[in-house]
């Protein structure tokens, strides 16, 4: 097990399986088919939301809902924050978002809109460092503490 310490953007605790994107995570491309059209698999309760970003083979077609999404930053369209907010409002959000770098403005917008305007719980930690993203692998268990400590095992 390895422990990392980051900065708390949205407080909370979570424990979930990691889904790792070493490239910038394109929020619109990842979620648009699942959320904006209404991925049929995503419509039912407790079913998955699959990543639709064909340009990011590491996460393409993988389930995102309830995962500990580990990423450097998000990229792409400025609808990204709105998409993340909508995921939170529908209860389809990741369990947490863990950024190795400083959070970007779109991810911050989405996370904050989700926190202020919905009941969803999605702790967000940033500045976990490059070593975090080098160490964590998809499938590992990630635990987020209230103070921004992230345990990976």
């Amino acid at each position: 097990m390895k422990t990392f310490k980051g900065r708390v953007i949205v407080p909370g605790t979570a424990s979930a399986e990691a889904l790792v994107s070493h490239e910038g995570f394109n929020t619109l491309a990842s979620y648009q088919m699942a959320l904006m059209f209404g991925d049929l698999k995503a419509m039912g309760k407790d079913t998955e939301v699959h990543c639709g970003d064909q340009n990011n083979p590491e996460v393409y077609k993988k389930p995102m809902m309830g995962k500990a999404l580990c990423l450097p930053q998000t990229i792409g369209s400025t609808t990204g924050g709105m998409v993340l907010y909508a995921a939170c409002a529908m209860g389809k959000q990741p369990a947490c978002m863990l950024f190795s770098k400083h959070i970007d403005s779109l991810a911050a917008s989405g996370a904050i809109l989700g926190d202020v305007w919905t009941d969803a719980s999605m702790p967000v930690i940033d500045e976990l460092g490059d070593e975090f993203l080098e160490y964590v692998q998809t499938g590992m268990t990630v635990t987020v503490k209230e103070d921004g400590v992230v345990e990976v095992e």
Partner: protein
Amino acid sequence: MILNQEQQALLDGSKGDVMAKIVKTLVMYGDAFGAERMVPVTSKYGHTVISFGIGVMDPVYDLYDQIINAGIISDQKFTADPRPLDKNVPSTPLDDLVFKKIMYTKQDRYEEQIRKLGVTSDDDYTCACYLDQVGNVPGKGDVLSWAESSAVVYANSVLGARCNRNSGILELMGSIAGFVPEFGLLTDEGRKADWVVEVRCEKKPEAQLLGSAIGMKVMEDVPYVKGLDKWLGTELNDSAKAYLKDFGAATASNGAVGLYHIENLTPEAVEQGEALIKEGAQVYVIDDAELERVYKNYPVIWKKPDAKPQLAFIGCPHLSLQQLKDWSNKVLDGLKKNGRTKVAVPTVFTAPVPVIREFEQTMESYHLKKTGAVVSYICPLMYMNNPLCKSKAVITCSNKLRTYTSARYYTDAEILDIVTGGAK
């Protein structure tokens, strides 16, 4: 974050709970970036990225209802991104069923909402709101609360305005409050370049390819691009602005660029030159081989990669008037060369309504119509945002459309060759 008395009162609920939540959202947003204060939004108009009423996005419209029901409207009027539907764009009965009965069932509800909130006009739905015909043209140094990645990067880079890459919903909150947190691209330091990009191409680089390569390399950093003035000149004329519009959209969608500087061309680069480059900036050299490498690496996700193209979209972001005229002339010349009178592939050019109106007064429009090509105000991205399009062989010269959909990217020349029937 230190708020002034009025901002603190709003946060404390002096204008109700909804306004307090709007200000709380803006404060948290600023805190995430170490903003120390709010600054007034000084542009005449805002711009929202949300232009669609998608059935499953109810939470967004419910939030807007909360704002409207609280009696809150935007301090400034705003333009909006392009509409997702236009009956002039080719579609099958099944497409129409999906668009109208499943996907965009909330379009009327949403348009009614933004009328109440302050959209400038029913004609002002475009991602290229900064074109003269639309008239949302901020001045140098203006502080904006905009979203739409291609518009933000254009306003920052070509117009010298100041805007962060805000998200949809949050941009409206800044327009409503009349202030935004000061950080990032709103500050002098945040506008300095982290990268020097040296363009060493032997021919004029394709705007959408160059932007894509730079976006993927620098992500959200600010690039200072050298060597492009050789191809674009040193005057921000219509041609240079159109190139930078398309280039910027690709940097913003293939990466997360909110501002770029072009040596000897964009306003801050002209004024400050290399003083804009941060100490220790990284260097990225781009030549023809590098652009070719980037192009070859784009995935083709058509079900049948060798399928015959069924539809071509040209104009993401929306075309300027000069671009529409240029494309028309190129299509007409290409058809003539290939002994045809009609386009070989259903082709849609997209542009803002006020630009289309002006274009319709020209001879180019008259001739283009005869080729069967369509000029539309639609958002191609919204059109393609459904599973039916995955089985359609749609081609585009937009790297933004390629990024978000199954559309296949070709260069301008290749697209022209295909739609005019010259391609083998």
